[in-house]
C-alpha cells in the first residue's frame, strides 16, 4: 500500500442516548433492569430503535459508513458543522473510543492533540507541567529535555518556570500548553481546533508553527472552524455532514461548498398584536439575482426584507445591522437615512438594500432586521435574521482577515414581485 498513511473503511460509531434518567447509569437502575447485559445488549437496542417514542433511550449515529484514504505527507482539513462527527472521527483515530463497526489501518506513529494542556495540574510548576504534559502526549523524557528550551522560548514564560501554573494568567497558561503540543514529533499528527488560544499575536505564531509542521512531510489531520486557517494549511479537505462524508477534494472547492451549506437559510417571523398582522422575511441575492448565503469580497449583494402587512404601516422604515460572530456590531444601515421610503405600505412589499462593494472579510456575518415607523415605533425586530459567510477565495491576497471597506449602499422599496414570493 506504500504511501497511504491512513485508510478508513466503513467506519461507524453509534451512541445510545438516555433520556430522563435521573439516576443515570446507577446500580439501582441496572438492578431494576436486571437480566439483560448492562453493556452491549443488542436485542435491547434493536427494540429501542423500532419504537423510539416509547422508550427512554434512542440511538444516535455519530458516524455512519465513512471511508477515505489519506496519503503520507498530506495535510488534510476536516470541516463540518457542530455535531457532524468530526470530533468522534478524531477520537476513534486517536484510539480514545472504539468504533461500532468499520476498520482503520494507520501506518506510523500517531499523536493527537484534541485539547491544549490536557493533564496540566494547577499545583505543579510550569517546568513540571511541561514534562507531565509531554509524557501525556507520548513524548519520551529525553525528547522533552532536548526540546525544553525551545518550548519555554515559544511560550514566553521563562520568568515563571518555577511558579505553579495556578498562579499563571490564562494567557500564559494556554501559551505554555500550546507550546508543549507544538513540539510533538510524530509521523501522523491529529489536531482538533487548538489554534484559537492566546492573543492575536500568539495566534499568528501558532498558525506559523502549524504551517511549519505541515511542510515537513508529516501527515496532518486538522479539524477547525477557522476557515482561513484551513485554507492556508490544508491542500485538501473533507466535509462531514451528519456523520457521513459529504465531500472531499481541494480545499478551495470544499470550503466554498461548505459555506453555501452552512450559512443559515433566511428566517421568517410573524408579529403583531392579534397574531400574524405582519410577516417579515429576509432574503439575500448575489449579483446575478440568485439566492445566496455567501458574501463575496468583490461582488454586489442584495438584501431584501419582505414585509407582508395585513394592517397598513405608515411611514415604514427598515434598518439592518451587521454583526460578526461574536455579535460585535459592524455596520448599521438605517432606512430612514435614505430618502425614498414609501408613505405607507400594506400588502407585500420589499425593502431592498443593495451593497455594491461588500469588501468585508469575516468568517460569519450576522444580520438583524428591524421594522419601525419613522417616529421610532418598532413593529418587529428579527435577530439573527440571516447568517452569511465570507468566501475567502474571493479575497485578494493583500487584504487580511477582518478588513472592512466602507460599502456603497443603495436602498429602495418596491411591491414584492411575483416570482420571488415563492422561493
Amino acid at each position, binding site marked *: 500500500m506504500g504511501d497511504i498513511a491512513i485508510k478508513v473503511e466503513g467506519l461507524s460509531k453509534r*451512541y445510545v442516548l438516555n433520556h430522563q434518567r435521573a439516576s*443515570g*447509569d*446507577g*446500580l*439501582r437502575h*441496572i438492578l431494576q433492569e436486571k437480566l439483560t447485559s*448492562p*453493556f452491549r445488549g443488542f436485542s435491547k437496542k434493536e427494540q429501542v430503535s423500532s419504537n423510539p417514542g416509547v422508550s427512554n433511550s434512542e440511538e444516535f449515529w455519530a458516524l455512519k459508513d465513512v471511508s477515505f484514504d489519506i496519503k503520507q505527507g498530506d495535510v488534510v482539513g476536516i470541516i463540518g458543522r457542530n455535531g457532524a462527527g468530526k470530533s468522534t472521527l478524531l*477520537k*476513534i*483515530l*486517536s*484510539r*480514545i*473510543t*472504539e*468504533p*461500532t*463497526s*468499520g*476498520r*482503520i*489501518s*494507520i*501506518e*506510523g*506513529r*500517531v499523536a*493527537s492533540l*484534541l*485539547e491544549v494542556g*490536557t*493533564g496540566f*495540574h494547577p*499545583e*505543579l510548576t510550569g517546568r*513540571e507541567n511541561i*514534562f*507531565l504534559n509531554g*509524557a*501525556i*502526549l*507520548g513524548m*519520551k*523524557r529525553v525528547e522533552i529535555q532536548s526540546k525544553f528550551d525551545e518550548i519555554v522560548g515559544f511560550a514566553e514564560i521563562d520568568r515563571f518556570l518555577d511558579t505553579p501554573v495556578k498562579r499563571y494568567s490564562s494567557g500564559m497558561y494556554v501559551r505554555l500548553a500550546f507550546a508543549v503540543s507544538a513540539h510533538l514529533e510524530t*509521523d501522523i499528527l491529529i489536531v482538533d481546533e487548538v489554534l484559537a488560544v492566546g492573543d492575536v499575536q500568539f495566534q499568528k505564531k501558532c498558525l506559523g508553527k502549524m504551517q511549519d509542521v505541515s511542510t515537513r512531510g508529516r501527515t496532518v489531520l486538522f479539524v477547525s472552524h477557522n476557515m482561513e486557517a484551513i485554507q492556508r494549511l490544508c491542500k485538501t479537505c473533507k466535509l462531514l455532514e451528519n456523520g457521513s462524508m459529504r465531500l472531499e477534494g481541494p480545499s478551495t472547492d470544499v470550503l466554498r461548498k461548505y459555506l453555501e451549506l452552512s450559512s443559515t437559510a433566511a428566517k421568517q417571523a410573524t408579529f403583531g398584536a392579534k397574531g400574524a398582522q405582519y410577516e417579515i422575511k429576509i432574503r439575500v441575492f448575489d449579483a446575478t439575482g440568485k439566492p445566496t448565503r455567501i458574501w463575496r469580497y468583490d461582488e454586489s449583494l442584495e438584501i431584501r426584507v419582505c414585509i407582508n402587512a395585513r394592517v397598513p404601516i405608515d411611514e415604514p422604515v427598515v434598518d439592518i445591522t451587521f454583526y460578526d460572530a461574536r455579535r460585535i456590531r459592524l455596520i448599521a444601515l438605517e432606512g430612514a437615512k435614505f430618502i425614498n421610503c414609501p408613505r405607507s405600505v400594506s400588502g407585500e412589499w420589499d425593502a431592498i438594500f443593495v451593497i455594491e462593494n461588500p469588501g468585508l472579510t469575516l468568517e460569519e456575518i450576522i444580520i438583524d432586521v428591524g421594522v419601525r415607523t419613522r417616529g421610532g415605533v418598532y413593529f418587529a425586530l428579527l435577530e439573527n435574521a440571516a447568517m452569511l459567510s465570507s468566501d475567502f477565495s474571493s479575497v485578494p491576497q493583500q487584504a487580511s482577515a477582518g478588513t472592512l471597506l466602507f460599502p456603497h449602499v443603495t436602498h429602495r422599496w418596491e411591491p414584492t414581485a411575483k416570482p420571488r414570493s415563492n422561493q
Partner: protein
Amino acid sequence: MEKLIIEAGRQERHYWRDLWRYRELFYFLAWRDILVRYKQTVVGVAWSLLRPFLSMVVFTVVFGNLADMPSNGVPYPLLVFAGMLPWQFFSNAFSDAGNSLVGNSNLISKVYFPRLIIPAGSVVVGFVDFLISGVLLAGMMLWFGFAPDWRILSLPLFLLIAIATSLGTGFLLAALTVKYRDFRFIVPFIVQFGLYVSPVGFSSSVVPEKYRLLYSINPMVGVIDGFRWALLRGQCDFHLPGFFVSLGVTMVTLLTGVWYFRRVEKTFADVI
C-alpha cells in the same frame, strides 16, 4: 514504520507492549500524584506517619489494654503496627485507585494510553506512603529493642501479595466506578468495615481454629499474618492453609480485575 489497525471489538494485540512503552507516563502520573498529595498542607509528608501512628495508638489502647487480647509476647504496639502498615497501604491504594479514573476523566476523554496505568499509578502512590510509614516501624522496633530475624527476608514476598491484592481490587473498583458512581459511596464503608474484619488490631490467632480457613477468604488476612510472621520473628502463629486460601483469592481477584478492566476499558471515554 509501525502499523496500527483499529477495528470494532478487536483485542489490542500490542496492549502489553503498549503498557511497557507508556511506562514513562506511568512514572509521571505517579510522580504527579506524589508531588501533589501533600501540597498546601501544613504538616506535609508527616501525614503518612501521623495517620498510621494515631490509629496504632487507638488500637493498642482498645484491643491491647481494654480488651486485653493476646500478643504472643510481642509488644502490643508492634503487633498492631505490623498489621496496620499493610492495611493502610491496601486501603489507601484501594480507595485512591477506585476514584482514579473518574478523577482523571479529562485525560481519558482526550488522550490514548493503556488505562491500566491510572489505577496502577494510585497503587504506587500508596506504596510510597507505605515506605514512609515503614520508617516509623523501624523506629518503633528500635524503641522496643525488638530486632527482626532471618524471617524478614520473606517480607518482599508478602509485600508483593499486598501489591497484587491492591492492584486487583483497584482495577476492578476503578472500572466499576466509571460506570456506577455508587461505588464512591460503597468504598469508604468497605474500608472501614475491612479494618475491623481484618486482623489489624488483634492477632488472627484469636479466631477459632475451625473458622481460620473461612476467615482467610479475606486476602488481607494472609498478607497481614505474613507481615507479622516476617517482622516479628515468627512470634505469631502463621496459618499455612489459610495463607494459601488468601493467596488464591488474591490471584483470582487480580486476574478478574485485569480481565474486567480490559473488557470495559474501551468504553470508558464514552461512559465517563
